[in-house]
């Protein structure tokens, strides 16, 4: 992780006139939403080109237009000088050497890792028939080439962890020997170690003359990797630069400026215990103890897949506990389902990271989305009190600045990713729960919104909420949390007093063998 504030020098090969991808004057609307407006973009072979912008700026839409998943309403798209504006379908782009990893993972869950990797070019024998027996060995070879031989090529994709899936997805894209690689938020689901791994391969591709385009909300990565950055705002390109400081970038993206990446946490934990867990087991948990106090932000860190998710889900009743006890405000409780957890007497809320699968009701209105967890609070004899609902939703929408003044009766799927995440947050804030389980809630969220969320977390803690906080960005945990628990193999392997400040310390504790709390 380099600290250099400037971008690496432009590639030497830039003499060649051909552009790898070029979009000019592209418009694209979804219903009433103008996602791209006279957008232009160009990237050269042999460079790593970052696309930056707030949630909803149009990055993913541009990528989809570039790789043919959707068609532009207006404008032109060229790949290596070939005009492909009217050609739809990733299949056609693939033939031109374009490979894409989308923001939403696109592995096929029922297929094996091998089948996923070799879908387009499986090993074939006589008569051109697929040699099914060769699939796994060939795939293993590919995985080995990318240094990820811990993944079993015969495992179904659905059986992999999110991080593993992301890795396989990336291997699939990289291994096709593409001339253009487009990665939409490739690191959002990757633990730090794999981010390094990915960076290595992106650089190698670049050095081989490939054009690499990627998006990220983590400035650190953009700084470290990109040869050039293009910033989008409101569907339009506002700048393309070789050098850009984070502060400048944030201003370009949002029109706002921030004092620093992380706010100073003002909340102070009390002595009152809000949630006490002892010897909790089930799933990957092998006896977890923790004591979360009111007003405290308690971080949960560790390498990916050490039981963090199971801990959150079990506390929320979405997963069965096999042993151990949970006390809320000093009283033992049994949480058998999320319904139990939400109940006023318990008051636990869980905000998931994977909004597509666990949070959102895409076609339902923003209002319905926000109201779901608290329906019966505003109902008499089963009938919804609509005006009460409107009022409640309106205030939380204001507070979180959701959807830039859009009507709350619009469908939630017209919002950008970050705004969708805020909708899910809003649902849980409305429950007025005293214990908040925030699981990687800033994943895929833009800098400005992230900042908003950090401040929100601080405010909530200051109001006496107890917050259990997990993030795949260790640095976040290091800066935001009063205390950090490091999980390893389903147990609390270390407890660090916070703010830790330096992510390396958490990482070190995650790996170190014998350190007890």
């Amino acid at each position, binding site marked *: 992780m380099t600290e250099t504030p400037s971008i690496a020098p432009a590639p030497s090969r830039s003499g060649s006139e051909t552009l790898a991808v070029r979009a000019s004057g592209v418009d694209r609307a979804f219903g009433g939403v103008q996602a791209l407006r006279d957008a232009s973009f160009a990237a050269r072979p042999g460079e790593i080109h970052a696309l930056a912008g707030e949630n909803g700026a149009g990055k993913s839409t541009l990528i989809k237009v570039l790789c043919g998943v959707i068609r532009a309403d207006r404008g032109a798209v060229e790949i290596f000088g070939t005009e492909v504006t009217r050609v739809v379908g990733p299949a056609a782009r*693939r033939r031109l050497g374009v490979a894409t990893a989308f923001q939403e993972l*696109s592995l096929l869950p029922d297929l094996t890792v091998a089948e996923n990797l070799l879908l387009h070019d499986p090993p074939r024998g006589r008569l051109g028939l697929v040699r099914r027996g060769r699939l796994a060995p060939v795939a293993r070879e590919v995985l080995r080439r990318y240094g990820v031989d811990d993944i079993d090529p015969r495992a179904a994709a659905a059986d992999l962890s999110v991080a593993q899936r992301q890795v396989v997805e990336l291997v699939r894209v990289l291994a096709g020997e593409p001339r253009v690689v487009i990665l939409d938020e490739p690191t959002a689901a990757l633990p730090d170690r794999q981010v390094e791994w990915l960076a290595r391969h992106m650089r190698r591709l670049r050095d081989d003359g490939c054009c690499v385009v990627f998006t990220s909300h983590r400035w650190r990565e953009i700084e470290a990797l990109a040869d050039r950055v293009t910033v989008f705002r409101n569907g339009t390109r506002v700048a393309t630069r070789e050098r850009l400081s984070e502060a400048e970038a944030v201003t370009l993206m949002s029109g706002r400026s921030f004092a620093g990446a992380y706010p100073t946490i003002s909340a102070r934990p009390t002595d009152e215990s809000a949630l006490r867990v002892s010897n909790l087991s089930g799933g990957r948990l092998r006896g977890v103890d923790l004591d979360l106090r009111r007003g405290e932000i308690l971080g949960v860190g560790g390498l990916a897949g050490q039981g963090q998710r199971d801990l959150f889900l079990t506390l929320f009743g979405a*997963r069965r506990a096999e042993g151990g006890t949970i006390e809320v405000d000093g009283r033992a409780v049994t949480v058998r389902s999320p319904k139990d957890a939400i109940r006023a007497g318990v008051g636990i809320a869980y905000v998931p990271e994977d909004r597509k699968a666990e949070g959102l009701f895409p076609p339902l209105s923003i209002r319905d989305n926000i109201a779901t967890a608290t329906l019966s609070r505003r109902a008499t004899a089963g009938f919804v009190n609509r005006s009460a609902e409107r009022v409640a939703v309106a205030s939380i929408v204001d507070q979180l600045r959701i959807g830039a003044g859009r009507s709350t009766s619009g469908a939630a799927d017209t919002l950008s990713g970050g705004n969708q995440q805020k909708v899910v947050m809003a649902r849980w804030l409305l429950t007025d729960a005293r214990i908040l389980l925030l699981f990687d809630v800033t994943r895929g969220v833009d800098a400005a919104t992230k900042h908003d969320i950090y401040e929100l977390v601080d405010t909530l803690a200051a109001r006496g909420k107890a917050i259990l906080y997990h993030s795949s960005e260790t640095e976040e945990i290091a800066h935001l949390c009063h205390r950090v628990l490091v999980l390893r193999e389903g147990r609390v392997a270390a407890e660090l007093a916070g703010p830790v400040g330096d992510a390396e310390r958490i990482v070190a504790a995650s790996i170190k063998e014998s350190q007890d709390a």
Partner: protein
Amino acid sequence: MREALRRVSLGYLVLAATAVAYLVVYSSRLGRFPTSFDYLSILNTTLPLVFVAIGQSLVVLTGGIDLSVGGIVSLCVAVTASTVSTSALWLVAVLALGAACGAVNGLIVAYGRIAPILTTLATLSVFTGLALRVLPVPGGSIPPQVRHVLTNPATPTGLIWLGLAVAGWLVLRRTRFGMRVYAIGSDEASARAVGVPAAAVKLKVYALAGLCAALAAVFYVSTTTSGDANAGAPFILTSIASVVVGGVAFTGGRGSALGAVAGAVALTLVIDILFFAGIDPLYQSLFQGLFLVVAVLLGTVAALAARRRRPA
């Protein structure tokens, strides 16, 4: 994939269990084992369902469902029975007709973007209407030569056709097309995103299902020796049942056509078991219904157990 294997083998397990039950009930009832007559007649009466079930399983593997197989079978039965010709060309024409009907479904589903169950509900009505137009009154015939080759009641020619069907599937499974069928059923949007030409693949799948229905029709006419414009109706639900018993997941992407074949045979055997067990025929559908649910329940339990073992 391991789970897929488990599901498929469940279809075989169900078949094995029903086969054993059949043998037990038969022999304890009649004091002897089934004869070649029994095996042959089971084979010949099941063949049409076997073919429809193979087609249905292809569609279900892509996450769809085909209710129109009933109409396609009816139409092809009507055409087969009302044309008297021994030329192979005529049989090919019937098969082409079935494939064309299937392709119509495929076009509407893949390019018209109408849900499979709705598309095929509508075309079911259209195809059945056409069948009635072709053969308003049951009848017609099939040349004895053709019958001799397809479902000779005296020799097991049916086995050859069954063998070819199985081989056909095994080949299909080993093509890139076969892999794509599973990819689409697993997650169509993702498959599309990674460059699987989903529309084209689905078009082919529905056309193949139509072809299978036409094959079924030809065998149907061959076993019954004449035609009926309503012949296809019962195949709608029985083919779905076969697919289900055969362990093909209704969400698509998991299972195999061979499982569906096993399911089809098992369903036929259930009729026979009930017959020889002396179950009051009025109660027959009760047991068939229970059989269906229990078979699938076993599958679900197995899958659940598998998921328990899988890390979260």
